């Protein structure tokens, strides 16, 4: 039927089809409609084309609607819940009848107001705590870095001073850094500053233990004297033996021995 037509005829046919489709769709002007009607009466081939176009168009218009299976709804609900879970807004209960939904919404609104207020309070506190902790961590890293500065004794003194002034409760990391400075730092001022900082934390058991231990290894007379005074202040009776040793040991400065005698008197 359409194999042997030339392009001119094809164009004519397309024009006619287009006109007929608009005619079927009721989209032509009054004048155009009359022209088409006349053509249909006159031209049998055009009429057949019209009949066939009308049939397929009506078939499409009237085609049955396809129903998805229940599975679609089920998997949608599952997916939605997963996505809501990812959203991290907590769990949501699904209520089907809208009355429940409204009731639940009102209840949630009331509860939410109260809880929201409470949460925001909690969050404020938590934020404040987090901020403080962050600041403490920064201070800690700063002072440990300063105590470890091999090139500047004044920086190391400053580090011990920061520990003394800013740290409320020293953790093991800070204590160890201070003890290391007190025992091993080549500069007396640093050793003294570290001891002064540790003195502030003398009530922490670990600090106390490290101070006592330092007494037996300490070679710096300045630090030795300060340590003995601190032991007296701390009423640390466990060091009397060590003090005895200092009073008799050779090579120990007389000032240190005197301090050890005073200490022994006070502690016994």
């Amino acid at each position: 039927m359409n194999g042997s037509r030339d392009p001119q005829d094809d164009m004519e046919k397309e024009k006619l089809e287009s006109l007929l489709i608009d005619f079927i769709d009721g989209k032509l002007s009054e004048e155009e409609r009359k022209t088409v009607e006349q053509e249909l009466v006159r031209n049998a081939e055009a009429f057949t084309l019209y009949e066939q176009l009308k049939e397929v168009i009506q078939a499409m218009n009237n085609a049955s609607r396809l129903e998805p299976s229940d599975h679609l709804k089920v998997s949608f609900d599952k997916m939605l819940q997963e996505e809501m879970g990812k959203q991290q807004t907590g769990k949501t209960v699904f209520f089907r009848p809208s009355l429940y939904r409204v009731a639940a919404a009102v209840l949630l609104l009331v509860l939410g107001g109260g809880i929201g207020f409470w949460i925001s309070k909690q969050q404020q506190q938590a934020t404040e705590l987090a901020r403080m902790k962050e600041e403490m961590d920064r201070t800690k890293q700063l002072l440990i870095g300063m105590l470890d500065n091999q090139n500047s004794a004044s920086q190391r003194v400053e580090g011990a001073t920061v520990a003394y002034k800013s740290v409320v409760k020293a953790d093991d990391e800070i204590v160890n850094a201070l003890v290391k400075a007190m025992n091993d730092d080549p500069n007396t001022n640093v050793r003294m500053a570290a001891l002064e900082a540790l003195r502030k934390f003398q009530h922490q058991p670990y600090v106390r233990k490290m101070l006592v231990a330092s007494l037996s290894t300490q070679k710096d007379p300045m630090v030795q004297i300060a340590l003995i005074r601190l032991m007296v202040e701390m009423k640390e009776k466990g060091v009397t033996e060590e003090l005895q040793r200092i009073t008799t040991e050779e090579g120990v400065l007389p000032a240190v021995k005197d301090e050890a005698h005073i200490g022994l008197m006070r502690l016994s």
Partner: protein
Amino acid sequence: MIMEAVKNGDLQQASTLFERYNKRIFNFLARLAMDRALAEDLTQNVFLRIIKYRGSYKEGARFQSWIYQVARNVFSDHYQAHKNKYSDFVDVEKLKDNMPETEDEPWEEKEKLLHRSMAMLPDEQRELLVLTRFQHMKYEEVAQIMNTTVANIKVKVHRAVAKLREHYFELEKN
């Protein structure tokens, strides 16, 4: 309005969108893919994308146009991904397996004929007929969805109808 709520984080509202559009989108995809089971999977993907990419929804835009655009993308992505598995035309003989009529909706002979002739059209023509004829969408909206002019859509739809007529009466003869 509902989509704006979803965009702003109220995902529960997506249920309402699902209720309103799932059948339309399913019908569109089922007629386009000519495969019901696949159409269900693709419909699910459409709603997943709508939730996932809710941020890309332009506020004030017509939601229906947007969801159809998403559906078209899901469909074309599926066929891009399965390029080697499917040929360009639908195997008419296999359609019986993929689009079985359910018991409560027995297809008449005419509808089967229509279905088979639809399968013989290229995707683009089939899509235009599904939107404008099966789903009764206006040329203006289809033009918006496909990002082209109304005149262009009209010409293409008319050609698709004419082509469908040819296949339909060819098949009827046999």
